């Protein structure tokens, strides 16, 4: 039921964004289509099962977006610095990090955030270990690498997705 409602809401938002209007007849058409689509697609999906719909969860979602944007800009400054430096200062390697997150959606968000933040790229995901290509390896140890890469996002995602 929760999945159905969230899928419906997402589809309605997409419909409104595409049509860029709030006229009631268009909204009605969109609602009918969205109900059918979410019934058809969401028979047994569990994508949004663990989402917390509390004020705290919503607040943390917005905060997470803010942190993410800041990291994205930082990562681009980092990339620019490395690319334009004639010496090309890189020290790449693949490190292993651990995550506590169980929800699939949260893990996808975590992997995408890691890919878009300074110097890291998710190469593979096996159970609770993420294998990360790091452009400038500071620490090979699992614990300290996790602290460096994962924790800044994990603490928000943990609240939002339980």
């Amino acid at each position, binding site marked *: 039921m929760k999945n159905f409602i969230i899928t419906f809401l997402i589809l309605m938002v997409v419909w409104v964004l595409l049509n860029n209007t709030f006229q009631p007849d268009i909204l009605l058409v969109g609602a009918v289509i969205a109900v059918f689509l979410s019934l058809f697609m969401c028979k047994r999906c569990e994508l949004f099962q663990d989402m917390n719909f509390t004020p705290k969860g919503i607040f943390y979602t917005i905060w997470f977006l803010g942190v993410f944007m800041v990291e994205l800009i930082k990562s*681009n400054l980092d990339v620019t610095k490395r690319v334009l430096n004639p010496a090309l200062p890189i020290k*790449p390697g693949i490190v292993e990090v651990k995550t506590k997150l169980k929800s699939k959606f949260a893990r996808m968000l975590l992997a*995408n955030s890691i890919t878009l933040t300074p110097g890291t790229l998710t*190469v593979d995901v096996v159970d609770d270990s993420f*294998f990360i290509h790091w452009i400038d390896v500071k620490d090979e140890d699992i614990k300290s690498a996790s602290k460096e890469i994962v924790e800044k996002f994990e603490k928000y995602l943990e609240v939002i997705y339980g």
Partner: protein
Amino acid sequence: MEILELIGAITTLTGSLILLVASIGLLRMPDVYNRLQVGTKATTLGTILSLLGIILIMPGWWGKLVLLIFFVMMTSPVSSHVLARASYFIKIPFTDKTVVDKLKVSAKARKVEYEKK
């Protein structure tokens, strides 16, 4: 109104400069994985900034542009992750500067799983 348009135009210009940095990085980086790093991050932010600039210039079009930004933010990391995973699987070599490869020594990851029908 004028000021907003000017800010938008400058945002778009910044985005295009970041795209330029991305292409320079693509030329300079030594191996596939480093190129993917530069390619994903810089193109994503560059495109997002260009689209944000257009939103500021033409506020009436925000719907589709916001959808486009969401789409780029969702798909670009996923596609580069799939590419990186594929290129590790087919053993594309690392550059000599690489210091560590935990994926090789990890027993969990070495077992390649197949889908069976």
